[in-house]
């Protein structure tokens, strides 16, 4: 591979934070999955996603590419299966993770939502992840979580990215989530003004059909342009 192509890969998949050997391993996995230990690769990706927020935001892409590559090369699914099972393990322990490290918990939610977004099966999101993703987002909408800006931020970012798809897969649970958000916005004492702003924006976003009207956009984002 040309050096320039290698560099693009590093950047595309945000794997700069890995040591060079691991970067090499990941790049090989993308090109020639059957030549590497895919269980190990999925573990590496999982572990890094829990530590590195930048990586977890886009880790779904590299996962998707490896899944496709493996399927194409030998009809295999070792990578996907192992990744999902690790994801499930971490899901089971999520409450403990949250207690131990808010950062890790937020990374996990970001990662599972990213996987939901990218790892589609026949262009449809994986049904198996729908409830777990909702469980995570609803957890973020609980009173204790709303008190932490990182959790609120994570929640609204994920809803922007996958809210519409999630609602298509299961609308009642989205309603359930938004009841909590409304309650939180209206009743929760001690919310920071940033948290309230984020909540109001997401409420308007969904009410507008997962699109922000131009006037609302001006209200929330005009200062960023300056």
């Amino acid at each position, binding site marked *: 591979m040309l050096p320039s192509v290698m560099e693009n890969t590093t950047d595309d998949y945000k794997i700069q934070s890995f040591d060079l050997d691991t970067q090499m391993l990941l790049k090989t996995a993308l090109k020639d999955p059957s030549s590497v230990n895919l269980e190990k690769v999925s573990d590496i990706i999982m572990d890094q996603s829990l530590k590195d927020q930048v990586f977890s935001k886009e880790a779904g892409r590299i996962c998707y590419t490896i899944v496709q590559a493996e*399927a194409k090369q030998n*009809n*295999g*699914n070792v990578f*996907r*299966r*192992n990744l*999902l*099972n690790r*994801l*499930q393990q971490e899901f089971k322990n999520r409450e403990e993770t949250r207690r131990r490290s808010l950062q890790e918990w937020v990374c996990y939610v970001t990662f599972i939502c990213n996987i939901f977004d990218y790892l589609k*099966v*026949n262009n*449809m999101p*994986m*049904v*198996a*992840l729908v409830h*777990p993703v909702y469980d995570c987002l609803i957890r973020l909408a609980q009173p204790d979580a709303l008190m932490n800006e990182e959790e609120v931020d994570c929640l609204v970012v994920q809803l922007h990215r996958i809210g519409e798809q999630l609602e298509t897969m299961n609308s009642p649970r989205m309603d359930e989530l938004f009841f909590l958000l409304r309650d939180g916005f209206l009743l929760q004492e001690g919310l920071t003004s940033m948290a309230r702003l984020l909540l109001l924006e997401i409420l308007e976003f969904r009410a507008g059909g997962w699109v922000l009207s131009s006037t609302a956009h001006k209200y929330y984002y005009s200062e960023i342009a300056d």
Partner: protein
Amino acid sequence: MSDWTRAKRTDPHSSKPENRKRGIDGSLRERETCCRGRENGGHTDGSYRYTEKRHANFTTPESTGPVSRCSRAADWGSQVDDEDEMRRDVHRDMQRYRRRILGAEVTQRERKTSSGSSESCDSREGENMETDEAVLLRRQKQINYGKNTLAYDRYTKEVPKHMRQPGVHPKTPNKFRKYSRRSWDQQIKLWKVKLHAWDPPTEDGQDKVLNIGELGLDDVIDIELDFPTLPDSDQKTTASLPAHSLSLEGEDCSGTPVKVQKTESRVEPDMA
């Protein structure tokens, strides 16, 4: 989850759930062949397969002995694999169905022009079929639950397709037809009720009588709303209590509501 798709892995070409039957009490029957991935499947359609390295049986805390791993897959890896496979199957079914309908339509048109017969309601079925993948998957799952029973197994062995009489013999609802949700769910319910007639006899020899009340068949009146083409009927709105003993099978099915019989006598491709 879709247990039947696990059975399919041992024979990618089969369309019948060969394994994992349930007895009357819902308990799993011993599987003759478990999920042995065939190394040389011999299939050329590129369908998805694993190379299995997993144990076929293991003992779980709940079970008293080795349990086939093909009990409901709790792990996400397997769930997604099953989803994948089911989607592929639904797509394949859809293609087959389309071809079948197109073929039937051409024949009908030819017949019409020659005999001047009145228009059949099926003539435009190909254009009006259900194609929403989520709906088809949900319906397929419901069908699978019904087919994954000892009763269905015994029924299909006992009554070959060409011997089946509409109204008398259960017919698998056609997932490609447009129906309202309620209509569909009722059809499935009634289909499964009918299948119970082929339940194997219980060990203690007691006749198992279905409690129709539990099934909420007082709602059966709603069928009228969903099948508007059917005439009103003074018939009792209770479904027949399927006699447990097989000797009564062919004899008295008059308890089955006329409404349901009418539906099933419509000419439709046999998807059972």
